[in-house]
Every structure is written in C-alpha cells, then in structure tokens.
C-alpha cells in the first residue's frame, strides 16, 4: 500500500467517482493540473462525459507518469476515490490488487471489501465549513496526504488556481483540512504498526 512517504511510481492510475454535481471532474482537473504545472510531470484527464451531468454516476480518470502517457485511459486504477455508493459498486472490481481505496465515510459502505481502506467524512466536514460543495476539495487534500501522488504545494496551488475568484482562501482551507485529516490517519496507522512491531 502506498503512503505519502513512499517513492512515486512511474505510472499511477487514479479514478475519482461520485455523483454529477459533486465536483468530481473538477477534482480530477485540479489533480492533473497539479501534476503537470506544479510537479512538472505528465498527466492526462479523461472525463466521463454524458447525460450524467447532474445526479448520475460520474467519474474522472487521471493518469500521472514521469514518462509520456501513450494510452490515457485507466485500465486498472492504483487509487480509487469514491464519493458515492454507485461509484464504489461500479469501479471496485477494476481496482488493482493492493490498490488504495479512499471513500467518503458517510456516503460509501465498502461492502465486500475486506482489505484496509482510507475514509474521511469529507461531505460532513464541508458542511461544517459552510459549503457542502467543497467536499471534493477536502477529498483532494485527503487524497494528496494519503497517496503522495502530487506534492501538497502543487495541489494547493492548483486548487486556488481552479476555483472561482473570491473563494480561493476558503478552498485552500478546505484542502488543508482534508490534508491534515489524511496525515492524522497515516500517523495513526504508523503508531499502530509500531505498537504491533514492539509487542
């Protein structure tokens, strides 16, 4: 399982999935932008495009690599980020063996998935911050901390560069909340592992 401390793999395939209207495509766009503009790596975003603009199942396929990306479609995601049950149900079988599953704690029940996964109540935190719409940005912060797929600086810059004018600070704060939550989760896991090793 990858964590923020491990070395970046040369090709990483990511699927962000949720309802139309949750900002799934925007999250994918910010991630790709962070990899390309901030981290100077290669990235592609393929957006599910169809009548599912609002409410239906929606997904963004992001590939990040140090080499030119020939085929930009995700075949076996290394990371699956689910912000809806439908998204989880649809994509979980495609996830690579040992891949990282990230979910919104209140929206997704990882039924039948018996391995470790990472969860955050991103929508609830967004509601606390006063804007439910920012759940995607919180999830992106969480994703960045857990996977290390992009650098925190690159991701935060891409967030402020991509959101509507006047909301940059609010979104950066949302990103930081997600990121901190992720770091705390990782720390907890480390402690647990250390405890086990010490016993």
């Amino acid at each position, binding site marked *: 399982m990858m964590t923020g401390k491990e070395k970046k793999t040369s090709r990483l395939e990511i699927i962000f999935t949720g309802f139309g209207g949750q900002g799934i495509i925007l999250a994918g*766009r910010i991630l*790709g*932008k962070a990899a*390309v*503009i901030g981290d100077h790596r*290669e*990235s*592609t*975003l*393929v*957006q599910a*495009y*169809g*009548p599912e603009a609002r409410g239906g199942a929606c997904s963004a396929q992001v590939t990040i690599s140090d080499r030119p*990306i*020939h*085929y*930009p*479609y995700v*075949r076996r995601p290394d990371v699956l980020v689910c912000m809806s049950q439908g998204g989880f149900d649809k994509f979980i079988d495609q996830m690579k063996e040992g891949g990282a599953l990230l979910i919104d704690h209140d929206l997704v029940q990882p039924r039948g998935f018996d391995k470790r996964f990472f969860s955050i109540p991103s929508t609830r935190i967004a509601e606390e911050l006063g804007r439910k719409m920012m759940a995607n940005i919180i999830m992106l912060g969480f994703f960045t901390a857990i996977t290390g797929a992009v650098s925190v600086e690159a991701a935060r810059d891409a967030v402020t560069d991509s959101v509507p004018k006047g909301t940059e600070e609010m979104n950066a704060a949302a990103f930081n909340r997600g990121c901190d939550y992720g770091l705390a989760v990782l720390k907890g896991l480390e402690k647990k592992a250390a405890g086990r090793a010490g016993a």
Partner: protein
Amino acid sequence: MRPAVLTGEYFMTGDVACAEGALAAGCRFFGGYPITPATEVAEHIAGRLPEVGGTFIQMEDEIAAMASIIGASCAGVKSMTSTSGPGFSLMMENIGLAVCTETPCVVVNVQRAGPSTGLPTQGAQGDMMQARWGSHGHYEIIALAPSSPQEIFYLTVEAFNLSETYRSPVLVMTDEMIGHLSERVVIPEAKKIKTVSRPRPKGSKARFKPFEPGPSGVAPMASAGEGYHIHVTGLTHDQRGYPVMTVETQEAMMAQIMGKIQRNLDDIIRIEEYRLEDAEFVIVSYGVSARTSLAAVDEARELGIKAGLLRLITVWPFPEARIRSLAKRVRGLVTVEINLGQIHLEVERCAAGQAPSLLVGHPGGTIIPPGRVVEALQEFSRGGV
C-alpha cells in the same frame, strides 16, 4: 484583455487548445453552431475573439456557419468553424463551394459516433471518408488528425497555414476523446509561431484575374472591397472568375484545383514513425487510435513481436508513397481506427497485395484498448489471419 497568443503552460482540453491554436494562427472570425462534442471550441473562442478584435457569430445552422466563414475569408479574414458529424454533413455542400472558389478556411470536426444523431457524447472516427469525398464532384482536400491537445494546438495553426498557402479549405479531423482529453499544452511565444497568409495581388488592378496562378502555382487572392476585380461563383469559372460552361474551362479549373495540392504533397503530408526501423508489422493509425497503437507497439514488443507505428498526421492527401514502400518490406499492415474500415481500405489499396492488411476497428462510442491490437498482432504474426 488577453493577447491572441496565450504564451504559457496549461492543463487544457483538446477543444480549448483548438480554439487557442486558431487565435494564434490569426483566426479572427468564427461562425458556428453548437454541437456536442465540439461545443467547447465555439464556447471558448466566443469568449476570446472579442478580446483580440475578432468576431464570433452563432449562425442559424451549420449550412449558414460554413457559408459565413467563406464570406469572411473572401473579405480577407482568417476564419474557422467547428462541428461534429451531423453538422459536418450539413457543411458538405459549402465545403465544395470553398474548394471550387479556392477560399481558405478551416473546418474542425470533433467526431462522434454516427450515422445520423448516433451517440452524441461518445467519440468515433467515422467521418474520415466523408472528409475525403463528402461534397459532390471530384476534388482534393487537406485533412489533419491530431493525437493530443498539444497537437491540436499546433495542427490548427498548421491548418490555417496550409489553407492560406493553397487557398483551400483544410479539415481538422479530431475526435471526442482528444477533444475532451486534458493534458499539458505549451503555447510558445507569439514570435515562435509561424503563421502564413494567402498570396496577395501586386501591381495593376486593371489586369488582375482572381484565379490566375502566381509563381507559387496558387492564384493571389484579393479581398472584397479592395478595388481588385472579384467574382466568386460555384459554377465552373475561368481565371477571371466568370462562369464559362465549357468542357475546356472545366478541365482547366479542375487541373488548377487538383494540381496545387498534388504538386505539393511533400509540403502537405506529415507522418510520424515509432519503432518502425526493424518493424515486421506496421500499425497505421491516427487521432486517438494512434495513442492506443503507441501502447500496443510497446506491449507487442515485450511479447517479442516486432511492431511499429506509422501515425498519419495528414490523412488527406493520403501518404500513399510511404505505405507503398513499407508494404514492400513488412510482413503485415494493421489499421487501427474507430470505424469499420475507412483508412483501412486506403492502406489495403496502397499495399496492393504486397503485404496482408488487417483492420482493428470499432463501430464507435469507445476507444479501442491496446489489448485488442496486441491480440490481433499475435494472431497475425502466427499467420492466423
């Protein structure tokens, strides 16, 4: 107000890169009608043209859109439209008018699955033969097929340059996958982007003939209202532009329309080769399917199959000479495209029996995965096809 050339590094979709490429090339008129998946080209350029002193008009339909860009070009303005399958069908008659009247203009087709309304939101490459022969009569046309958002930027600039050089409509035949793909796009400084403008008349206004070829073999083009004699008609016309209903005039006009392209194939045709030096099996592909093919070449090589890719950047005029020379030395040709065999037929024609030719195609709506190409190559290399 932002400049016409937005120098910088972006994470951008193909559709937006197309619009920016047009602006960088000097496009200052866009007449169009929205259609999925090409709408973003029009949407983006509609916001940008007023910033650079250009004009955007949403026309009543694609027939009028095509007519409007011909008119704008006759007035001396570089012009473009964008559409998808159903709109491309409606543009066909006036694309023929642009060919016949030798009017430079650029038509972008972000292809989706057809026939008819088909799958509006899902991509295909099913309009390639329509691009070649969709308007009535015999003619030459230039069509380019980009494989990435970065390449759409450059090829849209190139499309304008070719259309201005040869006084011909140029088609940018992209697809929904590339149009909606986001990737790195670097827009260079304005001075590093080569732009070309149509040959212009010099000298006596009295003696000027609007369809008399100049030293380049292409007729200098005067803009309407400059004082030079102008006559523009879709009827068979002589060098003065006047309709002359004789076989001799038809022969002379057709020789001009065909010849200016056919004499300049080396300047017009662009191809890219990948791992072709020692290849026994050559994939021929273009657009998004070339990306499938690049991955397939690498995967096939890992299995010990010597595969390579000939990527068509210019699809029309067709790179016949290169296919012919490859067919002489390879064991097989595989065309990968999201239709049921259009460019495949051209490859087969050029191979002329010297090498077997195979299609890996799809009726549209989805990209072809590399695995399908690799499987076909495996079977092909075992002699199973």
